[in-house]
């Protein structure tokens, strides 16, 4: 529960931060790709490096990763079916074979149905998700931010009180 509260706080903080909407949206889609695809994949190393190197919002990336990891668990069979369709499609056979025969590409494990299925689904999703998040952030800042700031729960979450509770709990846990 504390973790959820913590990330809601982070989300609100990120939404109201100085970060631009594209930075937030960028973090979100990169985190989404990591979340949707199998975690221990070579391409996720590159995505993680991009999150660190590019000026995208890391908090949004972590949030998207958490959300889409749960979704991916349920969607894995669909990813498998889509990946099977891709890998068995006659039109792409020469592409897959040339990728498979290249050791670097082979490290991506794009010959696995779930890896390639989830990766392509994640890529397709970036097209609507990226502008949607930008739009959402803009609309939030313009119309909702003020009202949200006045909510009691937000005050509790955002204030230093939350932080002191959070630290206090951690001390009790011995961390």
């Amino acid at each position, binding site marked *: 529960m504390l973790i959820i509260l913590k990330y809601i706080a982070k989300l609100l903080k990120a939404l109201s931060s100085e970060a631009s909407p594209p930075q937030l949206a960028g973090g979100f889609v990169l985190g989404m790709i990591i979340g949707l695809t199998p975690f221990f994949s070579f391409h996720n190393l590159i995505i993680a*490096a991009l999150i*660190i*190197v*590019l*000026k995208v919002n890391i908090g949004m990336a972590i949030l998207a990763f958490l959300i889409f990891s749960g979704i991916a*668990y349920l969607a*894995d*069979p669909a*990813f*498998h079916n889509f*990946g*099977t369709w891709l*890998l*068995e499609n006659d039109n792409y*056979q020469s592409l*897959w*074979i040339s990728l*498979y*025969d290249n*050791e670097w590409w*082979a*490290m991506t*494990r794009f*010959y*696995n*149905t*779930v*890896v390639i*299925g989830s990766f392509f689904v994640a890529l397709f999703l970036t097209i609507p998700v990226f502008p949607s998040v930008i739009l959402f952030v803009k609309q939030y800042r313009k119309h909702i931010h003020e009202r949200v700031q006045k909510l009691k729960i937000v005050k509790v979450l955002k204030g230093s009180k939350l932080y002191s509770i959070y630290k206090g709990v951690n001390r009790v846990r011995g961390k």
Partner: protein
Amino acid sequence: MRVKGLIFVLVVAALFIGIPFLITDEYIEEKIETRLSIANTALVEIEDFKFSLTDLHVSWSRLQVTDPDNTMMNLFETGEVELDFAFWPVLWEQVIINDLRMTDFALETERETDGYFEIPEGYDPETGVPEDAGFFYSITAEVTSTIAENARMEFTDVKDDINVDSLLATINLQSIDQMDGLKNDLESNYSKWDSTITNNSIEKNARDIEALVTSIKLDEIKDVPTAVKAIETIQKVVKEADSLKNEINTLQTDFRTDIQNSRNSIGQIDNWISADVDRVKNVAKLPEINAQSIGTALFGQNLLADLNTYLEYLATGREYGQKFIGSDEKADKPERYEGRNYEFTDKYDLPKLWIKNIELSGVTKNNIELAGQVLNVTNNQNKTGEPITFELSGAEEGVATLTVDGALNYLGEEKTESLSINYSGFSLVNSKISPSELLPYDLRSGKGDINVDLTIKDRRIESRVDYVADNIAFDFESAGAPKGTVERLIRDAISGTNRITATALIDNTDGPLKARVRSNVDDLFLNALKRTVQAEVDNAKRRIENEVQSRVNAKKAEVTQLVEEQEAILRDKYAELETKVNEQLAIVEKKKKELEDKKKELEEELKNKALDAVKKKIGF
């Protein structure tokens, strides 16, 4: 772009790439030594281990693998070894080595220090022998046993003064008990037949029939109806008589069959006695003198020991192959949503280990410099598509040559190992041609050739060892005078030849392991030996047979007499019964005929009377 983030990523990448370069060769050497020692259950030592990640190159100056059964010996050791491995397969946990150069390879070398290794706590090495290697060890144990039997074969043990009495005292002659049993069975059978013949109802029934027939008086039959009635009675009696006849026929068949069986059972007595004789002969250890046993006695020990050595190498190879290489079988993992891997080409379909080419050189225990190639060493031949093959050759002081080649082929359904060794031109001067006491002579000159062909298909072994000693001259003088007749005969036989060839054949292709040894001098020995030893053996056999026969003959006579006597008695009784019944049946037949005649007579009489009456009436 975050500059700090970029630096962080670069630092992490640098660490990832750099850490393997920071690991020292000593650290890797120690880890490998520990892992191999645990698997070997005895010390494995590597010296001057060097590993270069940039060149993908590994080398060491010496490797010693301790024999777990004798920690002061190495199973084998190598000198300098250098190898290059492929980079990419390592990422898929595959070790692919194109060329490996190994020098100073040697089997069974002495260690300077004890190679005992204390297995660290928490490790549980496989101590059992793998099933395949176990099969080889069981075969070598059988061959070892055969060698031991050959070594014990002593023709000179055969003597004239075999004490048959004391020999028989230790053996229970089973034929006597068996004959007692047979006698009891026969007595019981005869008693049964005696009772059957004496107390049956046949005789009484025959008497009843006779009485009934006798009661019919021909004189009292005056008219046809009375005659018809009498005939009906007699027909009924005939039926009963026929039934009685059948009964006695059945009895006769059973009796004759049973008596014949009893007589046949006496035939077993000779077999029982013969088995007793064989048993006594076995205890007396009388050898079968034939070419096979002589060849085995003279050359079997050497040739089979050679073969056993090579079998043991194969067994060790299989055992260590399975221990160190393991298998490509993956542990079953749950497949849930892990997807499926598509293998578009066979590029990564490689075994865990594949050493494509080993350039090997070393020295044998006989100090022969040996060099050659071993190809396609792998843990999974189905993936390489090639069997492991080896071809080594060398020479000893420019005179003797040694070639070793073979293949370990596990591609098909049946595992096949083949090994061919040829060692030729080695000197036989000052050596003995056989460890047998029958050939205790050093050689003054001569050269030897040994050729071994060994094939193991699944669990069927087929092997042949050929041994040739050429241009040989025996040093009879140094051995002194022959110590016995057999040795003298052998000396005479071999003094006329300068070439000895011997062949050992071992196989289990059609049943248990068979070892056969033949040599060109078998017949020479055989002729000489048969003149003396065979006569002694035959004499001993005869005396055993006679003694056994004399002990069991009385019992045999007793049984035979019982059969003769009882059979005669029973046959007489049966004949008497049969005669009586037949006589009574003859009376019935006779009466029947008389009655039929009487009936005819009465009918004739009646007919005449009727005719007379008619004639009278018409006044004829």
